[in-house]
């Protein structure tokens, strides 16, 4: 988002790692009210010239940020954020130390393009970080939007009228001690279930409008699996 005149906007990044520590990085060293605050990491205690307020101070570590897209659909795209991995003492890089000590996978972030003239954000996006790659010079984070169906765990079970528990398993609940018919396992149907309070299927309440004649009912028991 470039402007035709005036100073280029400053990119601001607030990150809250999964342990609650917060980080404020920008493409320009400045003090701005943050979106997110958290616990000040121990790393900050060793700074030669610590900022007056850690939460409002943005360190100039943010090298680039690109690929932020907004969509009306549920389409999700991953932006790329590059942070320098050079600074630090002569023995250890700052960011490498932070990546080792903290968990940035899944860290929540707020990215803003800050208009210096208006002193407000032109663009703001929140999401979660993933560490894409780390090299000698920089670390690339993938920035995923908060609404990302790809992140969701699917239901591990399927909806079915038949029970999915293995007979005698802890989920089934049937044991020789509480089930006199333990020697004759069920057929995973409700009608054959020995522990109906733990039945692991969907009860199908089929209503027959008319009483069918016995001749019309199949004598075969059908175990059918139906996804709903």
């Amino acid at each position: 988002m470039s402007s035709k005149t005036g100073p280029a906007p400053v990119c601001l990044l607030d990150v809250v790692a999964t342990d609650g520590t917060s980080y404020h990085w920008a493409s320009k060293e400045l003090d701005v009210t943050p979106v997110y605050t958290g616990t000040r990491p121990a790393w900050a205690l060793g700074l030669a010239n610590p900022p007056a307020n850690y939460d409002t101070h943005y360190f100039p570590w943010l090298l680039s940020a690109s690929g932020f897209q907004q969509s009306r659909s549920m389409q999700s795209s991953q932006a790329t954020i590059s942070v320098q991995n050079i600074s630090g003492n002569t023995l250890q890089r700052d960011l490498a130390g932070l990546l080792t000590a903290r968990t940035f996978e899944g860290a929540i972030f707020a990215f803003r393009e800050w208009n210096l003239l208006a002193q407000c954000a032109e663009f703001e996006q929140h999401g979660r970080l993933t560490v894409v790659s780390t090299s000698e010079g920089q670390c690339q984070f993938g920035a995923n939007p908060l609404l990302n169906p790809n992140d969701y765990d699917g239901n591990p079970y399927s909806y079915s009228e038949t029970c999915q528990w293995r007979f005698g398993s802890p989920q089934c609940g049937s044991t020789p001690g509480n089930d006199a018919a333990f020697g004759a396992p069920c057929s995973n149907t409700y009608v054959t279930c020995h522990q109906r309070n733990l039945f692991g299927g969907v009860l199908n309440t089929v209503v027959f409008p008319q009483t069918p004649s016995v001749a019309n009912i199949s004598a075969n028991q059908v175990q059918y699996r139906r996804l709903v």
Partner: protein
Amino acid sequence: MSQLDVLNLTPTHPLNPNYAFAKKRPISHLSAKANHGAPYMRDVTDILHQFVFSWNDKLAADARKLKRYYEQYRKGFFTYIDHEGGGREFVGRFSTPVEPSPLSHNHWSIQQIVFDEIPGLPMRNYPSDWAQDAIWELAVNDFGNRMVAAASGTWVLVADANAKTGFHFENAGIAITDTATYVYLGYGFQFWAPSGPAYGQAQLILDGAVIGTVDFYSAATKPSSALFTLKNVVAGQHVLSLQPLHTKNAASSGYTVLWDALWVMI
């Protein structure tokens, strides 16, 4: 052989290259800079010096000697003396082939021959012109970033007008395993620090070997000065550590030890 074989022993030696030749330090660091912010830099290789020589008009015998230096030391190194640079010596080899071109009868030209200094090699005479060549490696650099690491124990930055940058890195001097460490690129170094009546003693460890003791005591508080000097160090990346000894001058009232600055020969 090796450092004892000198290409150009005197300023008038026929194998001295023609002036002016290029003397440069290849890029040996990574750097990163945000759009608006101070740059960060980190040494990642230990290449220090490189020369690009030319010999414009040499007798055939001299051209053959140069070619022999290239062939002999493709798998080794020799000493080159920079007579223009105060007689400082460098050890390395020609990394490009010496291929003399004829100018006329018994006149040969050898152009653009690269001499690469090789780190980690012994020298006849290690560089010692501190005023001309040494650079400051400070506990806190000009951008306000602390460069010395607390490798072990509790070290804190303390404002100190007697320190080179207004800060020194301090340890109480009780635990002898506490360690401050600085990684530098160069040859020898001078260890500079303020001294005073309440300071103790520490040992310096270079690349894992104890090289000496530093006594930070002085009867009156004194600005940073060279408390330890080590000249004969091979070129390259070095890890220098300071560990308190939990000892002190009998007149001292404390054991505190500190890190201020290194003056590193490059």
